[in-house]
């Protein structure tokens, strides 16, 4: 696999090149923007090439360069699993870069494009290295570089105070998470005496069960923080919206998946098979994250925040796949385990694609309307038709509507959960049942949410005058979105062959468990190993297309003599203002009311009247629904208060009195003398 290795190393050279050049040219922002994007594009392309050559020519490569530091070695390894993630990362990065080239133009004169290019390239390189690093220390380094770069991208629009706060919160959380990861790796090092993943994998039986459980919990918290599982998600909804949209696309679509990658790597690849409660824990976490994620999304009006919450939801769905994989694995049901891994990987891929698409669509709207509040949109479909179309496709995909890709992966996830319900014992069965129920609910709520987003944003009449002046975005934006939209369709229609490839990867992950099961790999249909269920999306696509065409032709052209007349919407005799349309708040209000116990909605009503003195004729009645930040107020605030208390207590001892200071020395002297004499 020399070719793959070389192209990969070339990619690793290209990104730094992009970083350096764009920072070098930061006086000339056009040039900086161009070089930054260009090198990112080239790097992504070579990343894609090397990943594909690994993936489809069945190989792995590993590089191992010693460093000048004792325990650090630049050990890279790309097996099919990492190749898959490299492929996802590079693909999204490629389109994000083409998009960003156009998108960044509206920063000209406001912010330093050189920095953007620098950290953007660094960020992509970091992610690619994270999924290929084969040494724990190297992994931690690139992991932190990835976090650092993304931090700077989050605070890129640094004139807005809340971006700075968001960035800091993000960095606190991810750094704390990294501490957990470090501890996990240290425990592995303690038992195996090595930081090299290969060595750890081979000497796995040196690790005591307790240590394994500890590592599991630590890694789950650490990587879960990055992946944004509830309750460690609080950074996500504030950080992702703050970043430039193409970066949000990368962070939400790809970066959080690195956490998933490491979970698969450690829990399935390195550990031969943990106890059943690992899988069930992850199942439950996934269920909670998916439902709460979509519910919070429903309550949002900030379009990017809303999409960020959907990322939490989809991470939950991915975790459902992963959790069932772990459970099956510990029960020895390897064919089901592989099915579930396929589900997780497939949804990872799909979510990357459609979430990137949605963020880009949102970005192209924001870059024109200069607001993120969907209450101020409306009727944009008439002014930005392409953006609208692609956003619609994205919405259909994320709502798991056939024949788009979201449906395929959710279908497989359902099947793996069904498999659990069918074939595992008592407790686990109910866990699976709950998981399936939450997945069903999530799907429905996601539909509702995206009807809301698309409807309120693009349909009906503009709610602000300035909407009427906006025009479609530039070519580079539309082009990138078009490609992604196409991808959602292709990945959906050809889900059969995709899942076949993924099952190969899953096999390689589970390989050394012996027994490799994936029955009839069918390219035109996805089916479960035991023929429990199967669906062929190409046929759905075709037949639906034909039916649609027929219906359209028949009913469009057979009854000729009727005319269509343009009229105004029925207004009950009044004249319709934008305030008569349904708002996002109004749309999601009923759901929020139903789930009030979970969401703890805060409602404030402001009424203004025509005359100040008499309040008989209300002029406007503004209702503002928000959700209480229970995690902040119940977990993080108390933690902060505790720390403040302790540290202010520590401050007391530094009271500025020199006699006291000498007394400390005296006391410690006496204590140590006594201790020393006793020992």
């Amino acid at each position, binding site marked *: 696999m020399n070719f793959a290795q070389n192209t990969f190393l070339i990619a690793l050279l290209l990104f730094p090149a992009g970083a350096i050049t764009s920072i070098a040219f930061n006086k000339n922002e056009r040039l900086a923007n161009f070089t930054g994007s260009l090198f990112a594009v080239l790097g992504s392309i070579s990343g894609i090439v090397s990943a594909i050559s690994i993936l489809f020519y069945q190989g792995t490569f590993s590089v191992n360069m010693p460093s000048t530091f004792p325990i650090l070695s630049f050990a890279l390894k790309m097996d099919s699993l990492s190749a898959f993630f490299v492929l996802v990362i590079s693909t999204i990065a490629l389109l994000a870069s083409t998009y960003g080239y156009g998108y960044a133009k509206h920063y000209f004169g406001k912010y330093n494009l050189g920095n953007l290019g620098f950290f953007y390239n660094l960020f992509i390189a970091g992610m690619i290295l994270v999924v290929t690093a084969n040494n724990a220390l190297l992994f931690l380094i690139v992991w932190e570089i990835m976090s650092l770069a993304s931090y700077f991208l989050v605070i890129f629009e640094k004139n807005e105070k809340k971006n700075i706060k968001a960035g800091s919160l993000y960095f606190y959380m991810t750094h704390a998470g990294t501490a957990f990861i470090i501890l996990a790796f240290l425990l592995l090092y303690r038992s195996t005496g090595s930081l090299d993943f290969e060595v750890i994998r081979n000497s796995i039986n040196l690790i005591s069960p307790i240590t394994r459980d500890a590592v599991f919990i630590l890694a789950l918290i650490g990587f879960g923080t990055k992946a944004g599982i509830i309750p460690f998600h609080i950074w996500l909804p504030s950080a992702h919206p703050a970043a430039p949209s193409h970066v949000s696309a990368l962070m939400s679509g790809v970066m959080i998946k690195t956490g998933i990658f490491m979970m698969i790597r450690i829990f399935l690849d390195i550990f031969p098979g943990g106890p059943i409660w690992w899988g069930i824990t992850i199942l439950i976490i996934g269920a909670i994250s998916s439902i709460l994620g979509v519910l919070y999304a429903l309550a949002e009006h900030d379009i990017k925040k809303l999409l960020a919450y959907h990322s939490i939801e989809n991470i939950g769905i991915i975790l459902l796949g992963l959790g069932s994989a772990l459970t099956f694995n510990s029960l020895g049901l390897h064919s089901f385990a592989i099915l579930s891994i396929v589900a997780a990987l497939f949804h990872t891929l799909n979510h990357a694609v459609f979430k990137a698409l949605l963020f880009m669509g949102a970005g192209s709207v924001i870059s024109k309307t200069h607001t993120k509040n969907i209450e101020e949109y409306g009727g944009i479909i008439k002014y930005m038709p392409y953006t609208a179309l692609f956003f619609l496709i994205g919405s259909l995909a994320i709502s798991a509507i056939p024949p788009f890709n979201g449906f395929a992966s959710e279908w497989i996830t359902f099947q793996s959960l*069904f498999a659990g319900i069918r074939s595992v014992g008592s407790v686990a069965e109910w866990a699976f049942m709950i998981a399936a129920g939450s997945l069903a609910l999530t799907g429905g709520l996601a539909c509702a949410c995206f009807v809301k987003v698309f409807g309120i944003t693009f349909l009906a009449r503009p709610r602000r005058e300035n909407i009427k002046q906006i025009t479609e975005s530039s070519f580079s934006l539309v082009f990138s979105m078009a490609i992604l939209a196409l991808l959602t369709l292709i990945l959906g229609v050809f889900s059969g062959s995709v899942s076949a490839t993924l099952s190969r990867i899953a096999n390689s992950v589970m390989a050394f468990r012996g027994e490799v099961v994936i029955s009839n790999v069918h390219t035109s249909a996805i089916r479960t190993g035991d023929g429990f269920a199967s669906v062929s999306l190409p046929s759905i696509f075709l037949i639906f297309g034909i039916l649609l065409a027929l219906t359209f032709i028949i009913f469009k052209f057979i009854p000729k003599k009727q005319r269509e007349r343009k009229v105004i919407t029925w207004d009950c005799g009044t004249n319709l203002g934008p305030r008569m349309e349904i708002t996002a708040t109004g749309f999601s209000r009923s759901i929020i009311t139903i789930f009030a116990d979970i969401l703890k909605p805060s409602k404030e009503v402001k009424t203004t009247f025509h005359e100040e003195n008499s309040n008989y004729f209300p002029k406007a009645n503004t209702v503002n629904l928000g959700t209480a930040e229970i995690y902040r107020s119940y977990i993080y605030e108390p933690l902060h208060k505790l720390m403040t208390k302790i540290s202010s207590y520590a401050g007391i001892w530094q009271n500025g009195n020199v006699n006291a200071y000498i007394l400390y020395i005296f006391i410690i002297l006496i204590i140590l003398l006594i201790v020393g004499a006793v020992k």
Partner: protein
Amino acid sequence: MQNRQGASIFQPYSDLKKLFRKDELISHDASWIFKFMPYILFSTTLLIGFALPLITTGIRNGFFGDFLVIIYLIALGTFFLALAGIDAGSAFGGFGSSREMTLSALAEAGLIFSMLTLSILAHSTNLADIVHSVVSLPLTSLLPVLLAFIGFFVILLFETGRFPFDNPATHLELTMIHEAMILEYSGKRLALIEWAAANKLLIFMAIGANLFFPWGIASNLSLNAILIALGAFLVKVLILSAGIAILESSIAKYRFFRLPDLLLTSFILSMIAIGLIF
């Protein structure tokens, strides 16, 4: 019982005929989604129709006979229906789609689980297979099937816009769900939508009749078997519609915020059903 003289049962057909003749009014504010939705809605119902084993299990649709596909195809239709409701920018449409999406989100779980019960019994999610093997089930598994059916029936009432969920006959906009979304439609598009709604009703009845009580359905393609099956199907559908009619004339529409409990109940019932299988 309301002591009233109903219209002929062929009234819907004459309605359609009338609507197809009429001119059409389309709002300025409406986009292509508004114009295009009826075709999508209609063809989804057709597509689902292909997947259903109405008379015989001899023709097994292995391509998209999977029940999840059916459910998500229905979701596809609903998605566009709701969008179209918002599109014209009238207040009613928006509320209509809000309610529709709220309830369908809650209904989905119940629907999936009621059919999952059957597919677990049948060891397949393909409708034809389900029918095929539910016929030959031991009597012990009748209880889960019944529970699941109750759950399913609740969903049926919602999806087809019946009491206690919706009042298809009302013209008080504030109370309606389905009608509110299509308020802006007229002429042939309205006709298509109504037709699609009728199809949906048939689809759900067929599912209820054939999946849960698949007796008499033809397992091969011989003529007399099919005739018997046809008869059996008509009888079962008649019984179902009679049941719905009795229900509609005996109970009133529920308050909106009581409906979730109803849907939740159906979900729970199906869950219990699955629990009972083992």
